[in-house]
């Protein structure tokens, strides 16, 4: 009976290969999401146009402006007057204006001597895009104060992601999302399709254990997910330049665990749903939405209302994404994310146990 298991796998693979449209979608979506989140949708600071107001030009101001214009993330658009600020920002010509106080040099030395602590530099930012405004201010502060560290109250240093690249943040999120899509959604739909078309009746009426057929179904999806995983990692490393300093081994091991978890989720959905549409809807509503909203993919979990923070604990993607961020961006080794791993293993065991128990050897 052993060799027929691979016959089942072969049959499943044929189903997938012949369904070219779905294949294409599965292979393209990860690439699209990566490129989209990596480049188009970004909260990172890039080519921000900055103008400077300096009533009394001096060497120290020129130094600061030079640092600014040498920076890739800002484009220096020249000196303007106090009166022009509103117009320049309104027209969108510049997104930020740095205003140096009059008589800057003298006041700077006063601050240095501890005579006064009045602010010397004002940053005016177009905040119609909150994300850009936030990042721009934070980064401008970093540059300007970093230069004149003696006058700063505290020094901020952006660890791990000094340029606040959003791709770093999104890659783990996309992975958490895409594997649910491929594994959970596609597996559940393919199992439920057999119920819907009536082939499940024949499968059940055969001596082969149905659970064996189900596992055979999972293998090709697992294989596809592995290809997608490699694809995402390559894109992340070489296109988006995510450091992955924690080592590929840990990232891979945890991702494989997450794949198994997603497949179990798919099996679970297939035990509930009777039609392909139902399976799709359950996957989309019960799994995709919470992953988008509550896993930290789009919004930081700390920003959620308390109730949703509690709910987010039962969402597997939350733990996976958390661990992936630590490993990919902070460079943590696998051992450092043991808590996330244990939670994911526990969830896998529970979901698998429930699905296997619920899986019916008969029609009802």
């Amino acid at each position, binding site marked *: 009976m052993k060799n027929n298991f691979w016959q089942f796998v072969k049959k499943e693979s044929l189903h997938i290969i*012949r369904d070219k449209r779905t294949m294409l979608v599965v292979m393209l979506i990860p690439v699209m999401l990566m490129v989209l989140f990596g480049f188009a949708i970004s909260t990172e600071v890039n080519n921000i146009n900055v103008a400077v107001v300096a009533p009394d030009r001096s060497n120290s101001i020129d130094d600061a402006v030079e640092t600014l214009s040498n920076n890739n993330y800002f484009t220096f658009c020249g000196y303007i007057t106090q009166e022009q600020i509103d117009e320049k920002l309104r027209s969108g010509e510049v997104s930020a204006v740095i205003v140096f106080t009059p008589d800057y040099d003298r006041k700077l030395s006063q601050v240095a001597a501890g005579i006064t602590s009045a602010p010397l530099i004002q940053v005016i930012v177009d905040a119609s895009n909150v994300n850009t405004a936030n990042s721009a201010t934070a980064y401008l502060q970093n540059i300007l104060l970093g230069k004149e560290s003696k006058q700063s109250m505290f020094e901020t240093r952006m660890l791990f992601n000094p340029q606040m690249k959003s791709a770093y943040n999104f890659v783990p999120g996309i992975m958490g999302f895409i594997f649910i899509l491929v594994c959970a959604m596609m597996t559940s739909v393919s199992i439920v399709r057999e119920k819907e078309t009536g*082939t499940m009746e024949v499968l059940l*009426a055969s001596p082969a254990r149905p659970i064996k057929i189900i596992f055979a179904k999972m293998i090709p999806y697992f294989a596809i997910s592995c290809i997608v995983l490699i694809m995402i990692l390559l894109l992340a490393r070489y296109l988006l330049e995510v450091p992955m300093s924690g080592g590929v081994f840990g990232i891979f091991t945890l991702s494989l665990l997450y794949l198994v978890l997603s497949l179990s989720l798919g099996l679970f959905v297939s035990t509930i749903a009777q039609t392909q549409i139902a399976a799709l809807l359950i996957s989309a509503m019960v799994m995709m939405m919470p992953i988008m909203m509550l896993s930290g993919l789009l919004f930081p979990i700390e920003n959620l209302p308390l109730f949703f923070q509690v709910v987010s604990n039962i969402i597997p993607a939350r733990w996976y994404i958390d661990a992936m961020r630590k490993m990919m961006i902070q460079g943590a080794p696998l051992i450092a994310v043991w808590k996330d791993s244990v939670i994911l293993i526990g969830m896998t065991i529970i979901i698998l146990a429930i699905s296997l128990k619920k899986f019916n050897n*008969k029609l009802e």
Partner: protein
Amino acid sequence: MNIIETYNLSKSYNGVSALNDISFGVEQGELFGLIGPDGAGKTTLFRLLATLLNPDSGSAVVNGYDIAKDYQKIRSCIGYMPGRFSLYPDLSVEENLNFFAALFGVDIKESYSLIAPIYKQIEPFKSRRAGKLSGGMKQKLALSCALIHKPAVLLLDEPTTGVDAVSRSEFWDMLSQLKESGITTLVSTPYMDEALRCDRIALCNEGRILGIDTPARITAEFNSKLYSISANNMYALLNAARKIEGVIECYPFGEKHHLVADNNFNPEIFISKLSYIEGVTIEPAEPTIEDMFIKLMKQ
């Protein structure tokens, strides 16, 4: 001993009864037909015998195994073909057959002689996708797949529904051939004409069995007078005939109406009474399974 035996089998879905106290037996090597309209409970009976459902009450034995307790054993010795086309349309003819061989853990070569007469007819198209086959060819493939493991019992749920007349007739020829190989076949059909090709038939309606016997004896049991009547206006004839004295039953039957009458009925008086309808003819008719079915149904 019967190879299939059911004892007071009952099954209902959400309180709606589908099978009600069914008891019957199928002998070893028999070609046994379940004849009845949609909703008679045929599919439910098949699913119970194929161990896909558990009965609410009663029990059944297939090939010596109880359908509830030994369902795993039954699954190796039955070939089940559900009413719907249940092969993989995106796999080729050959791939489907290979998959089913793997499913039952057998080597195609071993059972090839059994399926050869059927499979040979579709073998020229073996690389064609199953979904692109004609209705008749689909049924042949499905039957080949159901036979791949040399089952002792073949359960065929409405195999000829939606298949053209020539293919239907061919299909029944194949079933007769299988009978010679010693396979017991339980087949259901809503077509009364196919009943004649079975060794024995059970007439079923609304979850009950109305009668079981050979087709010949079932029609022989029809002990009332039967006439075939026609007129230019068939609808008017039907309504009028039902009101005539001595007429027990009158119903459309193909192009004519069949009229069941008691002993007081006189065809000549019948014609004279209906002289206001144009072109009335009446002649004695041989009872068919359908007549018997209608009679049993009304009782």
